[in-house]
């Protein structure tokens, strides 16, 4: 039985094709202005890679910011539930999920069955989101990957006035102009991000194991600072790309809804 999950986020869109609970293929593209276009394109690309046609998909679940606007889905599920589900698949011992995506971050606690029992989101202000990191990486002239690695080499991380993404950007420029080593700035950026996230995580209550999902899970600077702040180890995900967690969860929901048993 072939099913699919499609996650149209604010920055990236993801699709996962699954056969009998195994991932056949996945795809990730930058989101377009119109969510249905993103959905169509990312699905097309995932299907092509899997050598599967749309008709063969028995059930498809949509999630993410644009979930209500997709044309081909059978059902829409919120990204909270999908990330919870996906995280459990990525890390079977996960009791807590921290997801940092492009425009919001979420902390959730799972019950033994992988259902979300408690969650908090931050979406009032763009600081504390993946978007914040992107803006900073651009100002520093480094890639997102480098931004994560660099902070390990920092000597004296700066404190960033992190109230606002746009102003934090001005702050970063000022530090650059003052010839503050770029590593120290990068570390300051990651710290600011991690400490915002830590507040959220602590307020839902940290429980082990912690699984990080979303694009920012790939930023090791943020993850390791977060470990320090929360006082727990965060298992690095090897099973699949953590940025795909939402789409994986959606596909797993599709699998269940189409009558497939839990693996």
């Amino acid at each position: 039985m072939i099913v699919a999950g499609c996650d149209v986020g604010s920055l990236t869109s993801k699709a996962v094709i699954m056969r009998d609970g195994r991932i056949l293929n996945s795809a990730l593209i930058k989101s377009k202005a119109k969510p249905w276009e993103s959905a169509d394109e990312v699905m097309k690309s995932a299907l092509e890679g899997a050598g599967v046609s749309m008709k063969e998909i028995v059930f498809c679940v949509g999630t993410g910011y644009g979930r209500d606007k997709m044309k081909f889905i059978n059902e829409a599920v919120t990204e909270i539930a999908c990330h919870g589900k996906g995280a459990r698949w990525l890390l079977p011992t996960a009791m807590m999920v921290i997801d940092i995506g492009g425009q919001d971050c979420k902390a959730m606690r799972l019950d033994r069955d992988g259902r979300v029992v408690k969650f908090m989101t931050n979406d009032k202000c763009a600081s504390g989101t993946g978007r914040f990191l992107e803006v900073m990486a651009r100002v520093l002239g480094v890639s997102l990957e480098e931004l994560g690695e660099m902070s390990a080499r920092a000597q004296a991380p700066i404190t960033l006035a992190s109230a606002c993404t746009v102003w934090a950007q001005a702050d970063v420029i000022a530090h650059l102009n003052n010839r503050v080593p770029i590593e120290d700035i990068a570390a300051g950026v990651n710290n600011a991000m991690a400490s915002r996230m830590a507040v959220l995580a602590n307020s839902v209550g940290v429980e082990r194991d912690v699984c990080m999902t979303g694009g920012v899970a790939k930023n090791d600077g943020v993850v390791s600072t977060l470990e320090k702040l929360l006082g727990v180890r965060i298992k690095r995900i090897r099973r699949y790309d953590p940025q795909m967690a939402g789409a994986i969860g959606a596909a797993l929901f599709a699998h269940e809804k189409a009558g497939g048993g839990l693996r």
Partner: protein
Amino acid sequence: MMEDFREVARVLNNRFVQKWKDEGKKVVGYTCSYVPDEIFYAAGILPYRVRGFGAGAMTIGDTYFGPFICSLPKCMLQLAGQGDFDFLDGAIITPGCDSMRRLDECWRKMHDDTKEHMPGFFFHFGVPHKYTEYSVKWFVDETRRLIRAAESHFNVAIKNEKLLEAIKVHNVTRELMNRFDEIRTRKDPPVAGADSLAIVLAGTAMPRDDYNRLLGDLVEEIGKSAKKLNGRKRLMLLGSANDDVDLVKIIEGERALVVADNLCFGSRFYSDLVSEEGDPVEELAKRSLAHNDCPRMYGEYRERLKKIKEKVATAGVDGVILQNIRFCDLHGSENGLFERDLEKEGIPCMRLEREYGPIVESGRMRMRIDAFLERLG
């Protein structure tokens, strides 16, 4: 009836107010549920609860208020400055919370600049934060001060027997609303939370006699209604003031119903009767100060929690939404306590922080509410 209520909930200077004014009668605005309506009813003046609904731009609000202030009073000032409240003959500002009390100065300074849009009668009404013998005494004095000021400004006499009569009329509303509550919390109720809010809003913005009549009819009618909104999750809404029916509509969507609340434009409007015996001013003051539904009454959290738990049980609530306007400290922090203590009892809660003002983009809010409903199963 329901259509009348819905209309009054949407229009500030509504038909009823216009008619009242056409008859040459006065209207006095107030900002907080701690101002006793009865006083103005007794004076033949229409008490009108000032709202922030419908403010688009914030040019005036932001000119006078600082940046870290709840947007509800800012929106009120914006509307006032645009002339939307020009129909008011008076306004009463209370120190409900720190953001709201500064509407007093901001409104006056705006008037200094424009020489417009401030009612002739403008009164700062000090409401204590506690219920004790001496605070009631103080508040009785304060209420008398208000009465005297209104009497002399509007050239009316607010006599005790008139006040007692007003109390009776307002208690009728409270009793009708309690009956309405009973209908609203039935198993498959005939009415949604959005309409319940419209009904309360109408009560704060139209002549009480008209309102009681319409409300009586409505309660009668829907009490018998066969309409059933079934199969939905039952929510309770707590927190900051909300006078926007659309917000409740977004929360309810297709799959949920708001069946209970503890809101300023909500149950706080009709909870607690005023004793019809004794000195009316004292009784009004006592009801106000004993009315501890709002976190501005410090140190009474336990009592509020108890009330809410009772409501959760009687209304068969599946989940509680704890919302607050950004920068609303009172509700923002009390929501944290409610969350802790209600979750402990197995009552699912979700906190929601929002900006007050026109709701344009509802996607984010929808996502969180959907996730919460998913959690409720």
